[in-house]
């Protein structure tokens, strides 16, 4: 009886050993998966890097082709943009002024309104009011730009023309303003994040010294959050520079070199839309000019984004 049992255990031992062997072979398979998965995921994560590289390389190659036809200096200092016809000229300045003026107008709207909205939401509004107002701002931020374009052309322009009769049916003022309205939620929410991250102890300290709410906000909270606030302004400018549909619809396609905001102006983005829409034959200077303009746009916005990150990192207050 005892012997039998020991034999049983002996048998069982063999089977356990087999089980271990089996387990090991299973294990090696799952070990392989464990090893492969990170590599596979790395490949997937590399897609975002490849996208950046793809953008850079396509823009770079075609831009180089462009500068074989048009000199670097005449592109960046030329005031005449006449892409079609035998005497084609490719001066960037009309597009550059259009872009900077429309972005400038947008900033005149978005920065003060967005900043003050952020202050209200962060410093004054009660939780209940916040719960109503923030979703409204989110809706404003979620409306497609094409809808803002429609709004600019069919509502804001006629409205402005009743005040400014000299305003042309397509002009840079109206899309500039509407672009500013579109960017308000972005400035408001980023600045509010910065303001809210200032600790309450700083506010309470100032309040205890007898400061009014405005003084607390203006002299304590805003200076403490200034890096985040300025970063939000810079990001807003970058967003305005890259905005396309509003200006394409409401500002027309005049390529005149002017500073008159009542007139039609073309931005860099709108130029790209117009030229691609017109089916530029591949290989022509016109076709390559698309990429040169896009490259300028890309570099501009990239620099802005890097600047914003630098500001918020470098000047962050440590509480």
């Amino acid at each position, binding site marked *: 009886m005892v012997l039998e049992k020991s034999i049983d255990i002996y048998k069982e031992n063999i089977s356990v050993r087999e089980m271990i062997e089996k387990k090991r072979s299973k294990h090696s398979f799952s070990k392989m998966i464990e090893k492969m998965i990170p590599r596979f995921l790395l490949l997937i994560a590399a897609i*975002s*890097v490849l996208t950046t590289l793809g953008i850079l390389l396509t823009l770079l190659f075609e831009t180089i082709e462009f500068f074989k036809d048009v000199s670097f200096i005449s592109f960046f200092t030329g005031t005449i943009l006449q892409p079609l016809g035998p005497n084609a000229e490719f001066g960037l300045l009309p597009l550059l002024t259009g872009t900077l003026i429309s972005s400038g107008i947008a900033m005149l709207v978005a920065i003060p309104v967005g900043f003050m*909205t952020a202050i209200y939401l962060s410093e004054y509004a009660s939780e209940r009011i916040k719960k109503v107002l923030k979703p409204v701002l989110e*809706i404003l931020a979620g409306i497609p730009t094409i809808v803002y374009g429609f*709004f600019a052309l069919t509502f804001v322009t006629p409205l402005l023309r009743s005040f400014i009769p000299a305003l042309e049916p397509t002009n840079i003022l109206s899309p500039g303003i509407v672009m500013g309205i579109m960017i308000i939620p972005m400035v408001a929410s980023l600045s509010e994040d910065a303001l809210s991250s200032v600790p309450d102890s700083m506010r309470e300290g100032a309040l205890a010294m007898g400061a009014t709410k405005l003084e607390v906000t203006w002299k304590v909270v805003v200076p403490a959050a200034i890096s985040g606030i300025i970063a939000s302004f810079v990001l807003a400018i970058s967003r305005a520079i890259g905005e396309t549909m509003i200006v394409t619809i409401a500002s027309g396609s005049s390529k005149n070199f002017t500073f008159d905001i009542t007139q039609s102006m073309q931005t860099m983005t709108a130029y790209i*839309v117009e030229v691609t829409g017109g089916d530029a034959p591949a290989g022509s200077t016109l076709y390559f000019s698309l990429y040169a303009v*896009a490259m300028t746009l890309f570099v501009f916005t990239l620099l802005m984004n890097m600047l914003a990150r630098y500001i918020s990192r470098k000047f962050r207050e440590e509480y």
Partner: protein
Amino acid sequence: MHYMNHTQVQKRMSTRLLKNYLAKLLFLLSTLFGLVVLAALIYRVVTQGVHWIDLDFLINRLSTDPKKAGILGAIAGTLWLMAVVAPITLIIGVGTAIYLEEYAKKGRFQRFIQINISNLSGVPSIVFGLLGLTVFVRGMELGAVILAGGLTMSLLVLPIVVVAAQEAICAVPQFLREASYGMGATKWQTILNIVIPAALPGILTGVILALSRAVGETAPLVVLGIPALLIPLPDGLFDKFTVLPLQIYYWTLDSALVAEYANLAGASIIVLLVILFLMNSLAILIRNKFQRRH
């Protein structure tokens, strides 16, 4: 030593309080400005388009005749676009997020990818359009078909999904992972069976928000050369297509020629806004329903 003059303090106090009050009013007014504009925008769109929305408008195909024109093709194109963008961004976005949060060593390389993603999210959409035109439409010779549009849009909205998925994965409490390791699960088993299910609501919210961005985006598709007037309905990845924002764009531009096109644009905007509203509501619903699970 000067002591504070009581009357002077009181005089200054009243101006300080007045300033305080006026500032508060100003801040409130600028907050309400956004609300007023939103109301004006919706009013403008609704008065322009609401009378043009009927069943015929939804189920008719495009036409140059404003009275017969419908947006069935544009709606079909929008759905097709979503069908391409959703799986691609889900797989790539979640894969990237898992890599960054769970596998990558905190160091230069991880920071490089992170900065790269944040830079990508700042690139103007029209530049993505040129990338799509060069690589997908011309380079791969796909033409302006659904696949080319979907791939371009996927790259455009990818950063949104990655960031959302990263936040969701980051929010999964560490003790869940440790419990799983304690039971003998491997890293990948833990990620697959514990982390992803726990992070799923956040991930789905991100994907829906990314989709709603893709549905409303116009500029890259204009650059790809998506046609203005397309009568046949798309029924495959390699078919030409059009989407609602493009229809709105061309109708708005041509409203100078044919006045009724403005009404069609208004009606299409209402449909587009309703679709976006439904998608965002779904995202909020998912977020609220699963928010307090752990």
